[in-house]
């Protein structure tokens, strides 16, 4: 009896793969064009271009990948028009007005390697997460990423999730993730 059970046990042990997939969540833009044209000031757009060799052109300048996160954070956290009371940036007039207006535009070539693209996406999401963590630490004394993971986990109790929902929403509104994936350049 025990032998047969052992045999089956070993079979299932070997074949088991406990799948937990994880990755970068993104929303694609809807295909319908917006009703009216939205005018966005050039200084509120942070352009990141990846060419087919994986080189980065950030705001018309060549940049190393390791500097990208800090550059994105500086841009988002700038608070140029002084309406952002939680920003700790340089208040540079030529950079973004407010985190809620700041948009990161990511463009890539058709020949760009997928791995490069993901690494860049990762750095940009990381910039948002760093800033959100900073604000969450200031307001609630814990990291935003941790709060969000707990909120999204279906095993968390309902009352805790309701409590977290407002907090997560509030932090997200302070630094809304506006990451535009523009159409790929054809050349």
């Amino acid at each position: 009896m025990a032998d047969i059970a052992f045999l089956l046990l070993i079979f299932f042990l070997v074949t088991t793969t406990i799948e937990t997939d994880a990755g970068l969540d993104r929303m694609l833009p809807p295909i319908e064009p917006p009703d009216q044209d939205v005018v966005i000031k050039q200084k509120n757009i942070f352009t990141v271009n990846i060419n087919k060799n994986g080189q980065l052109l950030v705001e018309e300048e060549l940049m190393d990948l390791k500097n990208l996160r800090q550059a994105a954070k500086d841009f988002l956290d700038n608070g140029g028009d002084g309406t952002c009371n939680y920003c700790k940036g340089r208040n540079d007039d030529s950079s973004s007005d407010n985190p809620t207006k700041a948009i990161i535009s990511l463009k890539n070539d058709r020949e760009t390697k997928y791995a490069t693209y993901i690494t860049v996406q990762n750095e940009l999401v990381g910039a948002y997460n760093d800033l959100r963590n900073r604000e969450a630490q200031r307001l609630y004394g814990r990291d935003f990423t941790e709060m969000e993971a707990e909120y999204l986990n279906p095993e968390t109790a309902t009352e805790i999730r309701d409590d977290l929902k407002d907090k997560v929403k509030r932090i997200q509104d302070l630094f809304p993730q506006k990451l535009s994936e523009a159409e790929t350049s054809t050349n």
Partner: protein
Amino acid sequence: MLKIPVSHSSRVPAVSTAALPDIVFMLLFFFMTVTTVKEQSLKIENTLPVATEIKKLERRDLVIDIHVGAPLSPYAETFGNEPQIQLNGKFARVSDVGPYILEKRASVPEHLRALITISLKVDQKARMGLVQDIKEVLREVHALKVNYTTYSAERPQSTP
């Protein structure tokens, strides 16, 4: 001082193994319940890129997978070495992606359809052109929630 009585019989009784089958059965049932039989065998290379800022995909039943990668050697003769799309265990073209998503979505209860996530499992060596084409198709069928599935940076060696 308390004296612990020491039995002087030299023979220690053997540990009873009567409960062993119970324990083994318990473990067996545990593994039987958590086991997920792989839905499809991959016919393509699928080494995902690595990222750190990742979120877990909850609700497996609301996830639609799209695999992209170069065909493995037995299929390379027929399908070439360029990255291909694999849907549900079969090679597919970009134009097949839309109908596939719609078909999968139709099998999900209506109130859950908005929560469907497309998991893009793209090999790290693939080019963005193909991924871009897939993204265009996804936009056309209004499947806007995507997840670029990656390995987490802590354990880049794990296999799917």
